[in-house]
């Protein structure tokens, strides 16, 4: 039994509930024990443009709190995962920065400790649970569904720190999808960006990015998309209509699932146990093909 601190970050517990629901319902069935981490909060990643030290501080704080609990962190969000690992790496190599952060943390009674290990959902599924185990638990194979994996930028980059997916030859994500009985495939710029960070500067341009991504995926004959990052989900699932209006009513609609939702569907969980009723994109089509009713 692997045991992790469930680190939700910001977007998931305030908006992307389906990710949290599917993780809470799927992972324990795969032998993963989740321990709540209510004192966690924001990893600081969104603050880095305003003040890099604020970012470093927030992640240093999280690492320290987790280290004290002696459990590895399960980061659901790509941004959180990158943030924690990047700051861990920075602090490991910079003594002055460590001293500065230790001082700040002492103001709130926390001792700096960056030893906590950090893992992403994909790693828990692929490296801890394992493809064979997942395969053995499949009750409803996703037959005939061709799924485009959409790992998202920070699952792959920056590759000078450990990444959940193999940054050179991404293959973990697809091998999990394949284990569920679905098809996988190549499409250009699979490791590309959803544009979420562009939203505050220009929503219009962020939506153009979403539209172009979905267009390519459809062109390459996929019937669904899967991501494991709440920001990517927010863009490619929730903003399909908005993106379509930016590109003149081209049909870019396609069902988008969290990876944990796909795993849950294949394991026979009920759609509501996976929060599928909260997905904005047309997931019903895929569910119908599998003989699953969204409202069962």
């Amino acid at each position, binding site marked *: 039994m692997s045991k992790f601190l469930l680190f939700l970050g910001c977007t998931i517990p305030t908006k992307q509930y389906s990710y949290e629901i599917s993780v809470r319902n799927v992972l324990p069935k795969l032998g993963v024990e989740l321990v709540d981490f209510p004192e966690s909060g924001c990893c600081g990643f969104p603050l880095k443009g305003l003040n890099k030290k604020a970012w470093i501080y927030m992640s240093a704080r999280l690492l320290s709190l987790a280290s004290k609990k002696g459990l590895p962190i399960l980061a659901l969000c790509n941004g959180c995962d990158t943030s924690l690992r990047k700051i861990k790496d920075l602090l490991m190599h910079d003594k002055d920065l460590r001293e500065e952060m230790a001082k700040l943390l002492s103001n709130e009674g926390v001792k700096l400790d960056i030893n906590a290990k950090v893992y992403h959902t994909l790693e828990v599924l692929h490296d801890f649970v394992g493809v064979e185990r997942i395969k053995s638990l499949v009750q409803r194979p996703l037959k005939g569904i061709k799924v485009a994996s959409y790992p998202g930028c920070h699952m792959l980059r920056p590759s000078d720190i450990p990444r959940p997916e193999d940054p*050179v*030859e991404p293959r973990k994500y697809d091998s999990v999808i394949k284990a569920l009985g679905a098809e996988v495939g*190549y499409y*250009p*710029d699979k490791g590309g960006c959803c544009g979420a960070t562009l939203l505050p500067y220009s929503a219009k341009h962020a939506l153009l990015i979403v539209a172009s991504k979905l267009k390519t995926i459809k*062109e*390459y004959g996929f019937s669904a998309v899967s991501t494991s990052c709440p920001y990517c989900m927010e863009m490619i699932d929730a903003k399909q209509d908005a993106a379509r209006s930016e590109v003149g009513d081209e049909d870019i609609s396609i069902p988008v699932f969290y990876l944990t939702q796909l795993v849950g569907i294949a394991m026979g969980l009920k759609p509501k146990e996976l929060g599928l009723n909260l997905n904005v994109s047309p997931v019903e089509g895929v569910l119908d093909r599998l003989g699953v009713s969204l409202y069962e």
Partner: protein
Amino acid sequence: MSDVRIGVYVCHCGKNIGGVINPAKVAEHAGKLPNVVISRDYVYMCSSPGQLLIEEDIKKYNLNRVIVAACSPRMHEPTFQGVLKRAGLNPWLLQMVNVREHDTWVHENVPEKAEEKAKDLVAAAVARAAHLYEINTVRAPVVKSAVVIGGGIAGIRASLDLANAGIKVYLIEKKQSIGGKMAQLDKTFPTLDCSQCILTPLMVDVSRHPNIEIYAYSEVVDVSGSAGDFKVKVRLKPTYVDWSKCTGCGACVEKCPGRAPKEFDEGLGVRKAIYFEFPQAVPRRPVIDTEHCLWFTKGICKVCEKVCPVGAIDYKQVERYVELNVGAIVVAIGYELYDLSKLSEYGYGKFKNVISGLQLERLSSADGPTRGKILRPSDGKEPKTVGIVLCAGSRDENHVKYCCRFGCAAAIKHVYYIKHALPDAKVLVFYTDVRAFGKGYEEFYQKFRSEENVFFIRGRPAEIFEGRDGSLIFDVYDSNTNQLINVRADLVVLEGAVVPPKDWEPLRRILKVSCDPGGFALELHPKLRPFETTSDGIFLAGAIQGPKDIPDTVAHAAAAAASAIGFLAKGYVESVPYLAVVNEDLCSGCSLCVPICPYGAISVSEKEGKRVAKVDVIKCKGCGACAATCPSGAMQQNYFTDKQVLSEVVVLAGGAK
């Protein structure tokens, strides 16, 4: 030591020394030290008047030790040793004191302390000088023959030059034919003459030269001995064909049913399981590839044996070894292309239509897999748009840091290949800098950048994607026109980075040659001695010293050969002055010094009833490792004996004050 008579000479080196300390004060202080007969300072001690001053003093004052406090001994020790020789003294009675690099250059902010330090250093040298003694070197003859490792254009040129000078040459080639990378090229820049046309006559010259013996399909596995008298052990790999019987008729190759990717075509073509490396191979003798031969893999077939008219096929052949005795070794093993699949963003190895520059050479060659037609590998169609990417892996902190030195000119040549074969094709060259530095290269660049539908774009693709029809889709930002260009190309050619061959590292250890940060062989001096190594008698020819194009490779190889000829023609090698010397009375024969010697120069043997160490004076390079290891002090190193060093240390530690 009552008759030690020392002269001390303190140099100003203009302002280098004189501008920081007062050399006259240092000389004055030295004058009061024991055994010092005369001490002086002078503005440029290395100048003619300075040298004459010392020479006259030696005679006038009957000096038998000379101390020069000046610059580094690396600079002028030989100069002042010449002064001693001219005055009739053994040159090793000179002691240099470095008061420039070790003192005034580093302590110019504290001149008083620098002057004190100069006085101390001179005092230490005075103490040491009392223990100096005459050192005479010995000579040994050299064997007038050479091994050349590597049969590419560098090894070919070096072998021919050595052989023409009357030196017996053994040319060792790891593949079955000489010719190297140049044999794979279609044409050569900037003149566009056919590579094979200028290379193959030289290959034939090598094979016919009475002074050259080729060991093909062979490798050097051990080198012992030392400069002038190396023993080179060569492994002749089994070819499963008796080359002494074989006539090269090719009947076996023709009938062989086995197939394998053709190395010579960089994987684009197919060859038989018994094969010539290429049609013009020298020696023209086939080899059986046991990984693809049906007899070796499945125990069936034996067609080659049946069709061979001279009975040369020998499935039971085993490797053989020969030992060659030579005076010099020329290393000419060239380079290798960097594994381009490591640049995962470009898709080499993943997308069929992303190829290397060398693969394009094969596509363009008349004897290549497409008989000289440039067709894209995925579907054999003529490409309409071709992208050429420069610096693929070169000048890159994540891959190869240095410049490949021929990618730019090769890219321009590749523009010619494409435009010549496919006049209507569009060619996009993605460059960062076009380094057209060689003779005629700028003119070459000028000619081809003016061609119709050839576009030089100052930018570098970051990610290449594959379209559904096998074409390649990517964006390039052109910083000349300030726009992002969306490219759809049918073929992409990567001008890849260059690295030392994989077998260089083990060979390097056998040869005891140092390497540079890129892994290439380290030359003795980057400007003045670029074809010699720190190991005497071992010379470097061509790209193993660093990436080179053909003109530079040939020039370098010829220079290496000339240097080796000079070394061999001199007729002798001379021992180093800093030899290790055994005091046989003290030596217990413990043998600790034997394994510590990096040159294998020490042996222990019976002498008058006891075991004592013996130093081979030619092999010894004077590193001092044995002297430092010797527990009894029996092993001493000339010019660095315990007495000499310790007497200096005592003074510097304050003992003489």
